[in-house]
C-alpha cells in the first residue's frame, strides 16, 4: 500500500473509530450524512432546473447566473478558509506534525494529506455537490459538459488547497501565543459581523442600499480572474470560444494548486528547521505590574484576574460583541431609537456568562489558591471586583453612547426613561454577577483551553448551551422587583414617579450581588474538593 493510500485509509479508520466511540457520535454522524445527502440532492435539483432554463436564456441572463455562481463560490471558499482558521491548532488528524516520526518524504506527505482531505467526509460532500451542479451544462453540448466537470473538480481542489495553504502559513508563522490570541479575536469579530448580516439585510434599514447589479457584475468579472472564482467561468469561456481566457484561467487554477503545494512544502521545511525555537520574544516585564498595588490576598487575586483577562481571548471576545450589538440595534431600530437600549441590556446579561463558569476558566491553577487556604469569601470578592473594574466603565460608556444615539439628550420624558434603562442595565449587571457567584461555585462545565480558545471539549455542547441559559433566566427572574416597578412607571399615565426605577434597579442589583457573594462563598468553601475533582476531570477534555 502506498503512503498516500495508507494516509487516506488511516483518516477513515480514525473517523469511523470516533463515530463508533459513542452513540451520540453515531447520531451526529447520521444527521451529518443526511444533511450531506440533502445538500447534494438540492444541488442536483437546482442544476436540473437551471440546466433546463439555460439553453433558452439570453446572454444577459446567462451573465447574471455566472455572476451569482462566482460570488457564491468565492463566498464559500472564504467561508471554508475562515472555518479552518477557527479550528486552528485543534490538532487535526491531517496535521503534518503528527507524521514527523515516520520518515515520509515531504512531497508524499503533502500529497497524502491533501488527498485525504479531498476524500474526507466534507471534501467528498463538496465534490459530489459541485459535480451535481455540472448538470447545468448538460444540454449545452458535450464539450461544455466535460469542461463543467473539470471546472467542478478544479473548484473543489483549489478551495481545499487554499484553505490548507492558509492553515499551513498561519500555523507556521503565528506560533507566538499572543499573535494567535489576536488572530482569534479578529476571527471572532468577523464571525460576529457575519452572523449578524442576515438580520441587517432583512431589516428595512437596507432600503436604499440595494446592491447595484452592474457593480456586482464588475466585481464578479474581477473575481473570475482570481483563483477563488476562475473555475466558474471555464464552461462559459468554452461556449463563447474565448480560448485565451479559457487557457489563462486553467493555467491560473493549476498554478494555484502548485503554489499551495509549494507553500505546504516550505512550511514543512521551516517547521523542521525551527521546531523548539522560542516563539515568544517578549521578556520585557520587570516589576510586579498590577500586583504591585496589592495590599492583601483579595487585592492580589483581583490583580491576577485582571492580568489574566488581558491575555484571555475567550473572555475578551465578549467586549467587542457589546459594541457590535449596539451598532446592530442602532441600525435596526433607527425608526424607534429608544429600543436601542436593548443593546446594553442584552450586553449586561451576556457579560456575566463567563463569570458564571469562572472557575473553569482558571482550570487546574485554581488548585494553587485552594492549596494556599484561600477562603470562599476572598475568592468571590476578588472575582466581583476584577469584573466590575472592567465591566462597569464599559457599561457606563455603552449607556452614554446609547443615550446619545437614542436622541434622549434633548431632555423630557425620554431622558428620564433612558436613565431608568441605564439604571436597569447596571442593576442587571450587578444581579447577573451575583447569580454568577453562585453558579460558578455550583455548576461547572468544561471550557476550551486558553491556548486553543476555539476548540470544543467533549461534553461541553449541551452544558454550554443549557447552563448559561439557566443563569440568564435566573438573572432576569431575580430582577422581577425592578420589572414590576418599571413597567407601570414607564407606561404612559402611570401613577408612580418616572424616576422610581432608578433606585429600585440599583438596590435590586446590589442586594442580589451581596446575597450572591455570601451564598457563593459558602458553596465554594463547602465544595472545594468537589470543585478540584471536577476541574481535574475537565482538564483531560481540553487537550
Amino acid at each position, binding site marked *: 500500500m502506498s503512503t498516500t493510500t495508507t494516509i487516506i485509509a488511516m483518516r477513515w479508520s480514525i473517523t469511523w473509530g470516533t463515530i463508533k466511540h459513542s452513540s451520540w457520535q453515531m447520531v451526529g454522524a447520521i444527521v451529518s450524512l443526511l444533511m450531506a445527502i440533502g445538500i447534494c440532492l438540492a444541488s442536483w435539483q437546482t442544476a436540473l432546473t437551471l440546466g433546463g432554463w439555460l439553453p433558452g436564456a439570453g446572454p444577459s441572463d446567462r451573465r447574471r447566473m455566472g455572476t451569482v455562481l462566482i460570488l457564491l463560490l468565492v463566498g464559500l471558499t472564504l467561508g471554508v478558509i475562515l472555518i479552518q482558521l477557527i479550528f486552528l491548532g485543534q490538532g487535526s488528524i491531517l496535521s503534518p506534525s503528527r507524521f514527523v516520526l515516520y520518515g515520509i518524504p515531504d512531497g508524499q506527505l503533502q500529497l497524502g494529506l491533501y488527498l485525504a482531505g479531498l476524500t474526507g467526509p466534507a471534501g467528498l460532500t463538496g465534490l459530489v455537490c459541485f459535480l451535481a451542479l455540472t448538470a447545468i451544462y448538460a444540454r449545452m453540448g458535450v464539450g461544455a459538459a466535460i469542461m463543467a466537470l473539470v471546472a467542478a473538480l478544479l473548484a473543489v481542489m483549489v478551495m481545499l488547497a487554499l484553505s490548507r495553504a492558509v492553515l499551513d502559513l498561519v500555523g507556521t508563522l503565528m506560533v507566538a501565543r499572543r499573535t494567535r490570541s489576536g488572530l482569534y479575536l479578529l476571527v471572532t469579530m468577523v464571525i460576529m459581523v457575519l452572523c449578524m448580516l442576515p438580520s441587517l439585510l432583512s431589516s428595512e434599514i437596507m432600503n436604499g442600499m440595494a446592491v447595484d447589479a452592474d457593480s456586482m457584475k464588475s466585481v464578479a468579472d474581477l473575481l473570475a480572474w482570481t483563483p477563488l472564482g476562475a473555475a466558474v467561468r471555464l464552461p462559459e469561456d468554452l461556449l463563447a470560444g474565448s480560448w485565451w481566457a479559457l487557457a489563462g484561467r486553467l493555467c491560473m487554477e493549476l498554478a494555484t494548486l502548485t503554489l499551495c503545494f509549494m507553500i505546504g512544502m516550505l512550511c514543512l521545511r521551516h517547521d523542521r528547521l525551527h521546531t523548539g525555537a*522560542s516563539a515568544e520574544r517578549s521578556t520585557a516585564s520587570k516589576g510586579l505590574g498590577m500586583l504591585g498595588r496589592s495590599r492583601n490576598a483579595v487585592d492580589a487575586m483581583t490583580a491576577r484576574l485582571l492580568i489574566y483577562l488581558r491575555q484571555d481571548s475567550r473572555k475578551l471576545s465578549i467586549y467587542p460583541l457589546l459594541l457590535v450589538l449596539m451598532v446592530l440595534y442602532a441600525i435596526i431600530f433607527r425608526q424607534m431609537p429608544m429600543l436601542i437600549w436593548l443593546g446594553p441590556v442584552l450586553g449586561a446579561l451576556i457579560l456575566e456568562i463567563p463569570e458564571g463558569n469562572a472557575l473553569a476558566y482558571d482550570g487546574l491553577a485554581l488548585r494553587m489558591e485552594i492549596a*494556599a487556604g484561600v477562603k470562599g469569601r476572598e475568592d468571590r470578592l476578588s472575582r466581583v471586583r476584577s469584573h466590575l473594574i472592567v465591566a462597569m466603565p464599559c457599561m457606563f460608556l455603552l449607556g452614554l453612547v446609547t443615550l446619545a444615539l437614542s436622541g434622549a439628550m434633548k431632555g423630557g420624558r425620554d431622558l428620564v426613561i433612558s436613565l431608568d434603562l441605564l439604571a436597569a442595565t447596571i442593576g442587571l449587571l450587578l444581579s447577573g454577577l451575583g447569580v454568577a457567584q453562585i453558579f460558578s461555585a455550583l455548576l461547572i462545565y468544561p471550557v476550551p483551553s486558553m491556548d486553543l480558545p476555539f476548540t470544543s471539549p467533549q461534553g461541553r455542547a449541551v452544558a454550554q448551551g443549557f447552563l448559561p441559559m439557566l443563569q440568564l433566566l435566573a438573572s432576569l427572574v431575580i430582577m422581577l422587583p425592578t420589572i414590576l416597578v418599571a413597567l407601570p412607571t414607564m407606561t404612559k399615565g402611570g401613577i408612580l414617579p418616572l424616576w422610581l426605577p432608578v433606585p429600585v434597579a440599583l438596590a435590586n442589583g446590589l442586594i442580589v450581588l451581596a446575597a450572591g457573594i455570601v451564598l457563593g462563598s459558602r458553596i465554594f468553601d463547602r465544595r*472545594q474538593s468537589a470543585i478540584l475533582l471536577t476541574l481535574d476531570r475537565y482538564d483531560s477534555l481540553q487537550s
Partner: protein
Amino acid sequence: MSDEARSASMTVQTAVAPPPDPQAAVSIRALVKCYQGRPAVNALSLDIPRGSFYGIVGPNGAGKTTTLNMVTGLLAPDSGKVMILGRDVWSDVDTAKRIIGVMPQGDQIFDRLTGLQLLVYSGMLRRMPREEALSRARDLLEAFDLTDAAGKRICDYSSGMAKKICLATAMIHSPRLLVLDEPFESVDPVSSANLKDILVEYVDTGGTVVISSHVMALVERMCTHVAIINHGLVRADGTVAQVAAGEDLEDRFLDLVGGRHQARRIAWLNGSGSEEDQETE
C-alpha cells in the same frame, strides 16, 4: 497479584487504629477514600518523623497522589485522621494548608504570570505582606537560578525552569513541611543538584520533606525514610535501610509490589526486515 491482596484492595479495611502521633510531622490513621465504591486509599496509616526526608513510592494507581491530596487538605477523606505538625488537618483545614508547602505541577499554576509575579502572588495568598513576599521571591529566584527569567511569563519557561518555580512557590512562606510530587522530573542535572542542596539544607534546619517519586535510585540516595504504597495500603515503611532489608531498594520494591514477569522474546526485534536488510538482499 494474589487473591488475598486483590480482595484486600477491593474491600475497605476496618481495623481499629491507634490515635495519631502529635510529635510526627505527618501522622495518618486509617485513612480511607473510595471512588465509585472502590477504595483508592484503604485504611492507610503512616507516621512521618519531623526532620526527615521521606520518600513515598508505589506503582501507578497505588494511591500516592490521593493520600497526599488528603494530607494537604485538598481532598476530603471518607474516614480516618490526618495530623500535620500536631494539628488535625480536617478540623481546621485552612490553617493546615498555610503551614505546609505543596509543590504544584506545571499545569497547576497561573502560568500567564511572570516568575516574580507568581512567587509574590503565592506569598500574598498566604497572608504575607507584599514587600516581604517580594524580598523572599527575589531570594528564591536567585537560589533557583531564575533571576534572568523573573520577568518572563511562566508559559514561556522550559519544563525544568517551570519545575523550579513550582518548588519555589511551595517554599516562599517558609513552611516546616514540604510536599513534593516528582520534584526532579525533567530538571537538568545542574539544576537538580542545586535543588537537592536546597532541600538537604532545608531538612538540616528541621524541616520535613515528603516526596512522591518513581525514581527508586533517587529515593535511595536522598531520602532518610521511605514508604512503599500499593493498592491504597502501606506495604513497608521505615528508614531506607529498614525497608530495603539488605537488598537493593528497587528489588525490594518489586518484591513487595509484584507484577514483574519474564520478558517475552520478540523474534523479529533484531533488525531483520529493516530497510537496510532489504537493500542488502
